[in-house]
């Protein structure tokens, strides 16, 4: 009898072991190496679906196609099975991706953005960085801009591949080593490829990867929002002014100084956007800082100066369009419960906001749209230096306007030109000096001009005819430029612009004004510090007040709008601009802004009042309804939403040949059969010998 119990016990234990091993996680820990590459995410609007999706987990052997010829060979080859194709980013054209998809041999793509051979880290990169690379459209955001109905509109990004706007129903991940985890993933994958190459894809086992990247979103933005599978792309714009008493009826003209806060690329996690995003924001902050040191406080000038840093501009200008919509249209608070509710998480009683429509505060009403005097916008300004004849550094920036005959535009263009060394000869030129008038490039100013085309608006940039060569690409990380060049480029244009604003705010900007009259200059050390903070340095002191984790690098992707929680970049701009424009510094001590009252900034460990506010930004075609749900109200405007997803699975494992897989299965079946037979016979034998029956 004891033996019978023992036998049962053994059977039970073996069954239990079998169950444990077949559990996904345990099994995967033993056989798989989990990696963390950067995914391409599904993003939708009311008319299109973009980004990547894999409905089922897929796997494939690792293969690297370094050149277009090798890629063509792979597509034409009669290889069996599925492959995960590692493509140099330069080869990631829509045509190549589509031919890979239709070849039936590809189960996923890894975009190789940079990186060296892991066996010799100091060697040259495996792939060459292309001179031009932009995954964005040929005319980015033009369908949402001022010239959307203009048939002969100018094409600003002729090198754009348009892959950001395409829909791929297979997983794409990026290989971009920049920190410990990404280096580890990168090395394992490249080692895997080299391993497979040594074995000529014939001698098994070979290295394969398995992906699981299910995106919950489907169909379009309104469907996805209704199903609760999407969040609106957006965040919080920041506006700030030294004019603490600015109000709707003060009749004082307002100069708006504007820049975009964030950027965009195919792989959100590694978006940096140094030129397109960061450089303009840095110039904006540097200008605010320079003006704050004006001998006569700028709040006493004839004009107000309002700094706006818009979130989500790369997504159909959603930051500027929402801001303009809110300050332009009459506001009507339908319901105010003065305390946080399910649908509106703000304590509106404390900050003077509204429960529906949900606003933390209504201070944006203090900005009177009809008082806007002019707009000065800083686009990409990091690359304003080029080498001229005799290898001498030359500065050159361009001013873009909608209408050259507008007197206000002419004044600003000529004033900037004069301050930079002379109209037509200084380093700030009219963008149309080559005889081609292109109107405005994609910019935030368009949202203002949409409501009143006569507002003078200038967009200052380092490009004349085409957007920067790495526009909205992962390569826009500044590694093609020298840091000191970037700093002096940003500093030079910020300097001239701050002087122009200083003069313009006093109504004394003139095409002939001598530069000696402007006791204003930009602090280039601050520019360097800001550049460092926003690109590489996690321990930057400007983040101290509000940054919890110290990652090596901040993603400059817009992110998704969350009502009461602001993203890192927004908080950065809020705190930095807020401190610069702080007015009355109290003796109340603070560690961060939560220690201070509403309308106050924590600067130098003291609370100070500052007219600096966050402003919600999400697609201008989206609106919240009373129960807190979001719906699409205008499919023509920006309605971008980002899909929710469950955890990505990305594993590296050894795959054996089909023959050995079949024999493994057969052996398993045979062993199971044998053990069943032996248990039955063993039980019978034991019962017989112990005479239990």
């Amino acid at each position, binding site marked *: 009898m004891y033996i019978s119990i023992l036998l049962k016990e053994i059977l039970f234990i073996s069954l239990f072991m079998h169950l444990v091993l077949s559990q996904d996680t345990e099994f995967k820990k033993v056989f798989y190496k989990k990696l963390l590459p950067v995914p391409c995410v599904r993003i939708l609007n009311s008319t299109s679906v973009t980004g990547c*999706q894999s409905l089922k987990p897929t796997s494939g052997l690792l293969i690297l196609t370094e050149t277009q010829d090798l890629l063509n060979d792979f597509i034409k080859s009669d290889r069996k099975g599925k492959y995960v194709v590692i493509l140099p980013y330069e080869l990631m054209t829509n045509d190549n991706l589509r031919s890979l998809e239709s070849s039936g041999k590809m189960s996923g793509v890894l975009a190789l953005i940079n990186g060296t051979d892991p066996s010799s880290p100091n060697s040259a990169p495996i792939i060459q960085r292309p001179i031009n690379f932009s995954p964005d459209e040929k005319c980015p955001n033009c369908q949402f801009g001022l010239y959307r109905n203009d048939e002969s509109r100018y094409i600003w990004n002729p090198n754009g591949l348009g892959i950001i706007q395409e829909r791929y129903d297979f997983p794409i991940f990026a290989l971009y080593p920049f920190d410990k985890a990404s280096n580890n993933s990168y090395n394992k994958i490249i080692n895997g490829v080299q391993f497979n190459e040594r074995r000529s894809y014939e001698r098994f086992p070979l290295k394969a990867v398995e992906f699981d990247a*299910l*995106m*919950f979103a489907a*169909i379009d933005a309104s469907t996805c929002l209704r*199903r*609760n599978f999407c969040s609106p792309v957006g965040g919080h714009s920041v506006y700030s002014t030294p004019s603490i008493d600015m109000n709707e009826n003060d009749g004082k003209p307002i100069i708006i100084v504007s820049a975009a806060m964030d950027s965009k690329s195919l792989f959100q996690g590694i978006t940096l956007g140094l030129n397109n995003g960061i450089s303009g924001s840095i110039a904006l902050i540097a200008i605010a800082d320079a003006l704050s040191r004006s001998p006569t406080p700028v709040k006493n000038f004839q004009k107000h100066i309002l700094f706006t840093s818009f979130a989500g501009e790369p997504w159909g200008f959603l930051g500027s369009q929402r801001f303009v919509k809110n300050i332009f249209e009459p506001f009507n608070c339908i319901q105010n419960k003065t305390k946080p509710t399910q649908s509106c998480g703000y304590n509106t009683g404390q900050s003077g906001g509204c429960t529906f429509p949900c606003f933390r505060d209504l201070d944006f009403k203090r900005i009177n749209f009809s008082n806007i005097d002019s707009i000065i916008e800083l686009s990409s300004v990091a690359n304003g230096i080029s080498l001229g004849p005799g290898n001498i550094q030359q500065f050159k920036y361009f001013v873009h306007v909608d209408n050259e005959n507008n007197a206000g535009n002419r004044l600003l263009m000529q004033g900037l030109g004069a301050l930079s060394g002379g109209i037509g000869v200084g380093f700030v030129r009219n963008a149309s000096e080559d005889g081609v008038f292109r109107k405005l490039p994609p910019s935030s100013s368009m949202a203002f001009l949409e409501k009143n085309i006569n507002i003078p608006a200038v967009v200052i940039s380092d490009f004349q005819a085409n957007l920067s060569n790495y526009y909205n690409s992962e390569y826009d990380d500044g590694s093609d430029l020298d840091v000191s060049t970037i700093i002096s480029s940003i500093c030079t244009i910020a300097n001239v612009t701050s002087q122009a604003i200083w003069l313009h705010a006093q109504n004394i900007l003139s095409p002939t004004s001598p530069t000696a009259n402007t006791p204003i200059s930009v602090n280039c050390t601050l520019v360097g510090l800001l550049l460092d903070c926003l690109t590489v340095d996690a321990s930057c002191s400007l983040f101290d007040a509000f940054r919890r984790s110290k990652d090596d690098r901040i993603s400059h992707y817009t992110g998704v709008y969350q009502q009461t929680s602001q993203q890192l970049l927004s908080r950065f701009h809020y705190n930095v601009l807020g401190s610069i424009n702080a007015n009355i510094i109290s003796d109340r001590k603070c560690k961060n802004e939560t220690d201070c009252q509403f309308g106050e900034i924590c600067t130098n460990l003291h609370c100070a009042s500052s007219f600096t506010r966050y402003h919600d930004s999400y697609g201008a075609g989206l609106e919240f309804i009373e129960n807190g749900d979001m719906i699409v109200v205008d499919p023509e405007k920006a309605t971008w939403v980002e899909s929710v997803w469950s955890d990505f699975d990305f594993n590296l494992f050894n795959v054996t040949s089909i023959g050995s897989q079949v024999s493994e299965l057969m052996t398993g079946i045979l062993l199971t059969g044998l053990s069943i037979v032996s248990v039955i016979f063993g039980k019978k034998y034991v019962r017989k010998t112990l005479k239990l029956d």
Partner: protein
Amino acid sequence: MPPNPSKIPPSEILSLCKKFFYIGLLFLPWLWVINVIYMWPLTKHSDIGKEIKKYLYFSTAGALFWLIVLTTWYSIFVNQRITWGEFADKIIVIPIRGA
């Protein structure tokens, strides 16, 4: 195994078969299927065979009816779910991800 008529009175078996059929009317097509499988060997019984056969035919017809209705609904739903939009999302119990 069907009930054994030599152990249980045939009238009782017949009444059980009838009960299966009538309860099956309460949207329980699987009960009809069970009825048919369970009772089918008894259709050859000399005494109650004919009666049982009648109820088993009814059960089969009912189960087939349900099969047709459900497969039709399923194919309509799968193909029309997207066009129905909000209505389809409302009648789904577990939201379908990625499609």
